[in-house]
């Protein structure tokens, strides 16, 4: 297993947001984490990337225990997160934002290669190369966040709500790109409110409810599960 969460709890002050989450992500998979607002999806992501300290439980990545590892060192190990919402650097240009993604890497030739790859994936970013990140539209910022997360050449890409605030056509597009990234060899763990899209693209998925995992299965299984349909797909 590339990533393994074993009974992880996270608390904000005295209030426990995750009550023991266990999940696994295998190499080469796309795994989705779906759930309503406040279910703990983003908290789970922040625990994995190291932005939120873990109470009890263990996180293992690529064979090592990273439960207590600093966030920046996890990036070096190969975990990369595209933060929730508008986590781009507003005052930096698109190019500088992408370069920030390669912060932990040294080899210039490789970085240039990956810059090219990001521009190939998102031609729109190439057009806006010299524009400040804060002046981009919501969709462009989302592309930038994903492109930037890829710049560290991660083993595991964490995507927090990649479709948030996007027009339906753009949502299709961004999920197409996620699948493409996965096919190029990057493992993906994504958190989504758009369960329809997430489940139809993911190999496996977990359903999160108020800090607990209540269901897991393959994407197609969950898509047809009556309870999931009822709660998350808006079909009665």
């Amino acid at each position, binding site marked *: 297993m590339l990533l393994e969460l074993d009974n992880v709890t996270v608390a904000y002050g005295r209030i426990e947001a995750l009550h023991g989450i266990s999940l696994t992500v295998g190499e080469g998979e796309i795994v989705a984490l779906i759930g309503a607002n406040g279910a703990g999806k983003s908290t789970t992501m922040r625990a994995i990337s190291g932005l939120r300290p873990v109470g009890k439980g263990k996180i293992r990545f690529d064979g090592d225990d990273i439960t207590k590892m600093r966030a*920046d060192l996890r*990036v070096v190990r190969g975990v990369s997160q595209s933060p929730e919402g508008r*986590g*781009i650097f507003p*005052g930096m240009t698109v190019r500088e934002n992408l370069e920030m993604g390669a*912060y932990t890497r040294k080899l210039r030739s490789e970085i240039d290669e990956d810059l090219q790859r990001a521009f190939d994936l998102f031609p729109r970013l190439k057009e806006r190369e010299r524009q400040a*990140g*804060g002046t981009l539209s919501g969709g462009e910022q989302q592309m930038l966040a994903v492109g930037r997360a890829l710049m560290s050449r991660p083993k595991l890409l964490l995507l927090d709500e990649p479709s948030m605030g996007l027009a339906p056509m753009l949502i299709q597009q961004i999920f197409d790109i996620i699948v493409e990234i996965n096919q190029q060899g990057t493992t993906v763990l994504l958190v989504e409110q758009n369960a329809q899209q997430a489940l139809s693209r993911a190999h496996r998925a977990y359903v999160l409810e108020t800090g607990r995992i209540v269901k897991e299965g393959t994407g197609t299984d969950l898509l047809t599960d009556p309870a999931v349909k009822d709660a998350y797909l808006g079909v009665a």
Partner: protein
Amino acid sequence: MMAVIDSARKADESRVRAVTGLRDRWANLPYGWRISVLFAFVIFLYALPGLEIPLIKTPDTDFTSVLFLCAVYVLVAVGLNVVIGLAGLLDLGYIGFYAVGAYTVAILGSPNSPVVIQYPWVVCVPIAIAVTMVSGVILGWPTLRLRGDYLAIVTLGFGEIIRVFALNSDITNGNRGITGVPVPSEGTWPEWMDWFPGITAGRPIFSVSNVIGFYWLALTLVFICMLGVRRLERSRVGRSWLAIREDEDAAEVMGVPTFKYKLWAFAIGAALGGLSGALFFSKQTFINAQGFDLFTSILWVAAVVIGGAGNQLGVALGAILLAYLPERFREFADYRLLIFGVALIVMTIFRPQGLLPSRRRKVELEDRAKEGAVGE
């Protein structure tokens, strides 16, 4: 009311465009031109004490002393700008570092301090810088895990602790203070400098009665520090600070060791604050705790914000205004807190990025305003 604010803001935006237009035009000038203009400006600054320019002279105070104060404040602003403008950490107790630097020089160098060793100034100052750096790390280590307002409150406390300590401790001679703070050198002006107005050959270079020497030294240190900070700003360190300032969480998931770089910003800022304090009080030759009130500390922050945090020229302008205006317009000097307070409020409404803004910060602030508007 909103309409008034809106139209004022529009007018301001066109002015901003004019300023950035000017900046572009400057950047497009041939290299040789820019160097020559800069060189001439630097010469002008050095020559300022000897020039007879009407209107800018201060009526009641020795003009060179005011220039020296301006230079010291610019040095303070350059250091504070590293902390506030570059790394985005709000430090309200910066004067604490200024005090630590000044007291270190006084204690180690003065014959009237409780510590008997009397090191010369050139030895005291590097020690003072090292001590302030360490004090920055000691303050930063536990507190830099805090963010935003919390950090501001803790630093505010730090500034006050240093002042109260200086007031009550034996090593600082308590409220009596320390006299005989060493001057940078006991040397005298050579014959060939005699032509400069105000300089008499054979008189000491550094004296209270003639501060040209102090002014030139301060100005030189300002240039060195500004160039040094500019280099840092454009290095990987500066890029890390920028990322932390714009979005600390995002910086962390890019792999920036945020705590380490925040600590560096604190230490470097502290070192510059200590240097400024050491410089200023060796001109005063006397130091006691009264020189370190919190209001001054807060006025410095105001100067940085009003001038344009993140842009060295901006913060220098803010510092010069803060040092110069109360001396030039003595009759209003008592109102300087009021005036700077009002200026700060007006600025936050109409021009939060400051008089000479840093381009990036301007985008950041607009971005934050947008986010705020969405949240409403």
